[in-house]
């Protein structure tokens, strides 16, 4: 004899499966990629032998060279969640690498060089943020401008006729320079990798537990609503660009330490890689949605693929494979999530 009709419907199995796939698809892709790469050479090698994907040395190698993109993925995700983009990350990274290398080669001690480079990252990020927020330039254009600008400045800092800042002409890179990106400190992995992990953990906390994280999603999801609710989107956006700038600087430090030089082109194309891994991680380009951790996993997938394939097939298959993986991952992710929600 009740007026109310129960509104709770039984969740069907397919919907729950959809939900599961939506939440965990990125991990499944990672597992799939790792399994495929591991068995690819089995006719020639044992599972963990030198020459196979699962060989610990190989894993260390991959994680080591991945440090820059792993450092960047999280910050880039947060920025994209807020509905913004930074195409200048590659150039910012290059510029940071050059600055860091110049400082190091001129005898500035590690911590100071590190700190100063991070400050440069703050500056580069803030410039982007101000262009977008104060001058109201569309993020794509604003950061394309700084892409060009930062790259130009990075090139300018290296003397004419040489490709990078490196030992020579009486100057010598200090020993610690290379160690940061290369010598194992824990589990045989270098500082640069662990910094990437720390940055990611910090950003996961930021995303889930702080005002910045929540407001980023609000600004990206519905900017007008956010503004009218009194969220100071300008501050949020500038802050996020700064976070990306700092991450780019850290990535630049990692890259230049790994290579022992300050290469003004070393970050070239990083913006594409960043977009690639972040999208692969399921972040919405239009903003509002995205998870730091998933982008981290996305970065692992791309790096495992590109590096892991090197010894399996000629390098000229790389682009095709990466493109195909992106398409398939995006398609399955979106198909699954739509099934789950409707």
């Amino acid at each position, binding site marked *: 004899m009740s007026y109310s009709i129960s509104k709770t419907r039984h969740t069907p199995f397919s919907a729950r499966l959809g939900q599961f796939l939506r939440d965990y698809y990125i991990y499944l892709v990672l597992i799939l990629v790792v399994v495929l790469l591991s068995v690819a050479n089995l006719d020639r090698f044992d599972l963990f032998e030198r020459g196979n994907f699962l060989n610990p040395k190989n894993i260390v190698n991959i994680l080591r060279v991945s440090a820059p993109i792993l450092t960047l993925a999280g910050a880039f995700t947060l920025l994209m969640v807020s509905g913004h983009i930074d195409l200048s990350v590659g150039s910012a990274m290059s510029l940071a690498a050059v600055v860091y290398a110049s400082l190091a080669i001129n005898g500035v001690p590690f911590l100071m060089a590190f700190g100063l480079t991070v400050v440069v990252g703050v500056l580069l990020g803030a410039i982007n943020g101000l*262009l977008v927020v104060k*001058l*109201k*330039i*569309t993020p*794509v*254009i604003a950061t*394309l*401008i*700084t*892409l*060009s*600008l930062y*790259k*130009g*400045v*990075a*090139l*300018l800092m290296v003397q*004419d006729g040489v490709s990078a800042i490196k030992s020579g002409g009486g100057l010598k890179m200090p020993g610690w320079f290379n160690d940061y990106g290369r010598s194992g400190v824990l589990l045989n992995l270098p500082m640069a990798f662990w910094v990437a992990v720390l940055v990611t953990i910090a950003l996961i906390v930021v995303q889930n537990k702080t005002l910045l994280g929540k407001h980023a999603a609000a600004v990206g999801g519905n900017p007008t609503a956010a503004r009218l609710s009194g969220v100071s989107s300008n501050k949020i956006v500038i802050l996020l660009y700064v976070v990306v700038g700092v991450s780019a600087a850290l990535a630049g430090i990692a890259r230049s330490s790994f290579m022992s030089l300050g290469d003004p082109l070393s970050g070239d194309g990083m913006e*594409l890689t960043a*977009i*690639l891994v972040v*999208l692969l991680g399921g972040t*919405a*380009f*239009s903003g509002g949605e995205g998870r730091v951790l998933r982008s981290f996993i996305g970065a692992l997938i791309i790096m495992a693929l590109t590096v892991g394939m090197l010894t399996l097939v*000629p*390098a*000229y*298959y*790389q*682009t*095709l*494979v*990466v*493109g*195909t993986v*992106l*398409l398939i991952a*995006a*398609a399955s992710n*979106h*198909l699954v999530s*739509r099934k789950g929600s409707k």
Partner: protein
Amino acid sequence: MSVQLKAKMAKGLKMSDEAFITLLVVSAAVFIFLFASLLVPNFFQFQNVVNLVTNNWAVISLGVGVTFLLVSGNFDLSVGGIVALSGVLAVWFAQAPGGANALASGFGMPTWMAMLFALFGALAIGGLNALFVVRFKIPSIIVTLGTMLVARGIAQVITHGSQRNTNLPDNFGFLGNIYLFGTSIKLPVVLMLVLVCVAVVIEKRTIFGRLTFWIGANPVAARLSGIKNARHQTHLYLFSAAIAGMVGILLASEFKSGFSSRGMLMEFDALVIALLGGVAIAGGFGSVVGMFFGALILATVTSAATGLVLSPDWQYILKAIAVFLAIVAQTWALTLKNR
């Protein structure tokens, strides 16, 4: 009554935002050209203006497709990849079989057939874009980023990461090297100008053009108003891919080679010139003419930098400054107008 009517007319004739922005981009292009003329010796000459257009026929052509898609609220980042793919395919299909090595032997098709089939290859990528964007409703930026990689990836596999340029029929180089009217202007440049004119008419004067704006302005409302969004977007993707395919084939013909890294980053250039030309990244606003002059702005900077033999660092910095000024002037003027 007649007074009222006149007032109404005057208001109706008030320049729209779009015309205003376009005019602004044009003025910016002219201004930058004149400014460069002050700095660079021999810059102020007719041949140099011609060069600006002839040097950029490829990216402007791509810009047409990209502009329409942007106006409809979609990205197309695949065009650069398609340029590489179609060129490589055309060459591969036309190369005589049984060459000295893998990269010297192809299918031995007659040139016209090789080019036609290469165009189909380009359309296939366009179709793939449409399938994923329209059918599976995956954001266009992801899709076209993916297909860009796939298209270039296929080109790289076919050329082993390099190029194919041997064992080609003589007439393969014909199309890309026809000089017209006894001048230094080649066929592709004229084709580009025709394309731009046709695109302007389509954009301003046809239902097809208007549909593009409606879909870009509000896809939900467009669908509910009886517009077949899916079909139209498919057309746009095929249209853009066909242009990119043509560009790739013409470039392959001009240089008699299929190069897997040709058109690298051209998708970004096409995007930049469109945005510089006032096209709104959110869709529903923009014009082909604006895009054209956006391209000329960039071209002027590049050309001046070359004339001054600037090192790459200064080239990048100069480009940044020019784009910055052009964009700031645009936003500033638009707010002034609408205050």
